C-alpha cells in the first residue's frame, strides 16, 4: 500500500521523511553532547578545586609539644601557657606580642594559637588530597608511615573562617587572604566608580544623540567594539604608562600629602581595570538602550517631552536592568583579571591591608598565581582555597545581578 501522502513524496529524488528526522536527531545529539562536555569540564574543575581545599597533612614541629610540657597543652591554664611562651621566645618578641594585645586580654585559645605559631612552628611536609585520603586510604597511610615515621598525619580543613581574616604568611598553615580579598574589593569599587558612569554616558550619547550618518561617529563605534577585544596585557601596559608613570603624582597621592609612595597604587590599578572594561561596558549599555522600543520614545516626544526628559524618564528606566546585568558580568570578568595588575605593579607579598586608594595592594588572582608557583605542596592547597573564595565572590556578584534585574523588571 502506498503511504497516504505519497503524492507529497512524489518522485524519488526527494529525501524520505525518516531520513530527515534522522538528520534532526543527529544534530540534537551533537548539541546535547556539547552541553555534556561543558558540564563535565565544569564538574571536573570544581571537583579538583574542592578536592584540595581539605585533606590529610603530615606536620612536623620545630619544637615538639611534649618538650614544652608534660601535660597536653590544651589542659594547661592561661598563666602556665603564658609562662611557656615566655620561656621559649626571645624577651623582645615576648614584649612585642604583649604590646600588640596584652596577654591578660587574650583568650586561652588565642594564646594556644600563639604558642603554636611562635614556639611549636609546625610545617606541612606532605599534603594528601581529600580524594586520596578517602579512596586510597591504605596507600596514603603506608606512604606517610614510610616517609615520615615520626610525624603526625592528621585531617586538615584548609577552608576555614580564619583563612579570610589572616594576612599572607610564608607558612601555609597560617596564611590567609585578607589583604588580597580587600584589595580585590577595593579595586572593583574603583573600577565600577570609573567605568560605570563613563560607560553609560558614552552609550547614551552614541545611541540617543550621535547621528549615525556621520562617518566620524560610525568610526568611533566600530573602534569601541574593536577595543573590547584588545588583550588585557595591553591595557596593563597602557595603565603603566599613563596612571603609574605619567600621572604618578596623582595616583601616588603625593598631591594630598602622602609622601614616599609611587604610582603603583590601588587607584592606578582600578583605573587601568576601568579602561579595560570600559569598551565592554559601552557595548553592553548600548545594546540595552537599543532594546528599548522606539514606540516608547515616540510616546514621550508626542507629549512634548524634551530629549533629556525622554531619556531620563523612559529610556534609562527601561534599559537599566539590562545595563546592570551587563555591568556585573563585566565586573566579574575584571575581578579575575591578573595580567594588567602584574604590569601595573601589584605586590606579590603584602601583609598589610589596603588603607585607601593610595596604598600598595595585591589582589586575589595575583595571590593565587603567586601561591601556585611555590614548590611546596601545601601552597597548592591554599591556592585552591583562594580560588574557591574567588568563585564564591563571583557567584555572589552574579546572584546579586540577577536579583537586582528581577527586582527592577518587576517594579511595574
Amino acid at each position, binding site marked *: 500500500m502506498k503511504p497516504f501522502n505519497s503524492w507529497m513524496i512524489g518522485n524519488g529524488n526527494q529525501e524520505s521523511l525518516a531520513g530527515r528526522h534522522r538528520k534532526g536527531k543527529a544534530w540534537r545529539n551533537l548539541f546535547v553532547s556539547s552541553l555534556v562536555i561543558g558540564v563535565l569540564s565544569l564538574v571536573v574543575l570544581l571537583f579538583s578545586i574542592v578536592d584540595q581545599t581539605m585533606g590529610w597533612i603530615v606536620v612536623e614541629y620545630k619544637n615538639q609539644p611534649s618538650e614544652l610540657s608534660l601535660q597536653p597543652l590544651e589542659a594547661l591554664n592561661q598563666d602556665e601557657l603564658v609562662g611557656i611562651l615566655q620561656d621559649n621566645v626571645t624577651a623582645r618578641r615576648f614584649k612585642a606580642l604583649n604590646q600588640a594585645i596584652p596577654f591578660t586580654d587574650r583568650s586561652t585559645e588565642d594564646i594556644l594559637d600563639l604558642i603554636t605559631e611562635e614556639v611549636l612552628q609546625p610545617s606541612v611536609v606532605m599534603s594528601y588530597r581529600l580524594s586520596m585520603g578517602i579512596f586510597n586510604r591504605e596507600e596514603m597511610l603506608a606512604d606517610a608511615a614510610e616517609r615520615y615515621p615520626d610525624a603526625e598525619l592528621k585531617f586538615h580543613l584548609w577552608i576555614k573562617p580564619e583563612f579570610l581574616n589572616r594576612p599572607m604568611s610564608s607558612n601555609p598553615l597560617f596564611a590567609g587572604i585578607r589583604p588580597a580579598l580587600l584589595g580585590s574589593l577595593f579595586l572593583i569599587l574603583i573600577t565600577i566608580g570609573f567605568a560605570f558612569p563613563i560607560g553609560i554616558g558614552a552609550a547614551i550619547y552614541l545611541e540617543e544623540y550621535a547621528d549615525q550618518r556621520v562617518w566620524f561617529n560610525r568610526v568611533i563605534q566600530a573602534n569601541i567594539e574593536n577595543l573590547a577585544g584588545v588583550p588585557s596585557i595591553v591595557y596593563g601596559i597602557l595603565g603603566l604608562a599613563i596612571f603609574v608613570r605619567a600621572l604618578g603624582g596623582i595616583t601616588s597621592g603625593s598631591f594630598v600629602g602622602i609622601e614616599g609612595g609611587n604610582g603603583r597604587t590601588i587607584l592606578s590599578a582600578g583605573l587601568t581595570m576601568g579602561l579595560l572594561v570600559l569598551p565592554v561596558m559601552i557595548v553592553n549599555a548600548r545594546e540595552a538602550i537599543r532594546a528599548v522600543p522606539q*514606540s516608547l520614545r515616540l*510616546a514621550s516626544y508626542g507629549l*512634548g*517631552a524634551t530629549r533629556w526628559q525622554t531619556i531620563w*524618564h523612559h529610556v534609562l528606566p527601561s534599559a537599566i536592568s539590562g545595563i546592570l546585568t551587563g555591568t556585573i558580568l563585566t565586573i566579574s570578568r575584571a575581578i579575575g583579571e591578573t595580567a594588567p595588575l602584574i604590569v601595573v605593579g601589584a605586590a606579590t607579598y603584602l601583609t598589610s591591608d589596603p588603607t585607601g586608594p593610595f596604598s600598595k595592594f595585591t589582589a586575589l588572582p595575583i595571590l593565587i598565581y603567586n601561591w601556585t608557583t611555590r614548590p611546596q605542596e601545601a601552597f597548592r592547597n591554599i591556592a585552591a582555597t583562594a580560588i574557591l573564595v574567588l568563585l564564591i565572590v563571583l557567584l555572589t556578584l552574579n546572584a546579586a545581578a540577577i536579583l537586582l534585574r528581577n527586582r527592577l523588571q518587576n517594579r511595574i
Partner: protein
Amino acid sequence: MMEREHTMALEVREMDFYYGSFRAVKNVNLDIEPRKITAIIGPSGCGKSTVIRCFNRMNDLIPGTRLTGEVLFHGQNIYATDVDPVQIRRLIGMVFQKPNPFPKSIYENVAWGARINGFTGNMDDLVEESLSQAALWDEVKDSLSKSALALSGGQQQRLCIARALAVKPEIILMDEPCSALDPIATLKIEDLMRELSVHYTIIIVTHNMQQAARASDYTAFFTMDTTDRAGLLVEYGETNQIFTNPKDQRTEDYITGRFG
C-alpha cells in the same frame, strides 16, 4: 501665537516632504477645520502617516528628513526657525498606531506628560478628568496604581488618548489608532472621537474607508503619483460629498474599491 483672523486649526501651504533625496509627499494644500474630525485616507504608501506626522514635527526625529512649504498653526509656521518642536508637540498631541502606554501605573501614564510640562494644579483631578474624557475612568478608577500594560488593547489605546488629553492639546493627531484593535474596541474609540470633537480638532489617518465614512466630518484622499511615487492630495471635502459624489475619478475608483 494667538491670532484670531486665522479661523482654521491648521493651514498647510505648498508642503513637500523629503526622506533624504526622495520626495515622499508633494504639494499639499489643506485647511483643517477646528473642532471637527478630519480623516486622511488613501492606499498604502501614499504618505498618509508621513503627512500627519508633519503636523506636530514628529518627523524631525527621523534623521535626514526635510520639509518645504508651511504648516500654519494660529497663523504661525510651525517650521519657522524660532519655533521649538517640543512646544508644538504639546499643543498638537498624538495617538499612535499601536497602543504604547508607558511601563508605569495607569495614574503615572496620565500624570507624567502634565508633570514634565510643568503642571502645578491638582494632579488627581487632572487624571480623573482626562480618564473620564477618554471614557476609561469607570473601568480603571479602582486600579489606578496597577500597571498600564495589564489593560486590554482597546483600554490601552484609550489610556493613550487620556494621556494625550492630559497635557491640554488643541489638536489630536491619530495615526491609524484602531488598526490593532478588534471591532468593538474600534467602535468605542470612534464614539470617543465624536465626543472629543466638541472641544478638540481631530485628524485621523485610517486605511479603513468605512471608518472614515462613519466617523469623520471631512475627508482628504491621498494617492501616490505613478510617475515619481510621491504622495499627493487628490481631493478634500466634506466626508459626505467625498463618499457620495467624488469629483475626481481616482477618488471614485478608490472608494468604490476598484483600486487600492
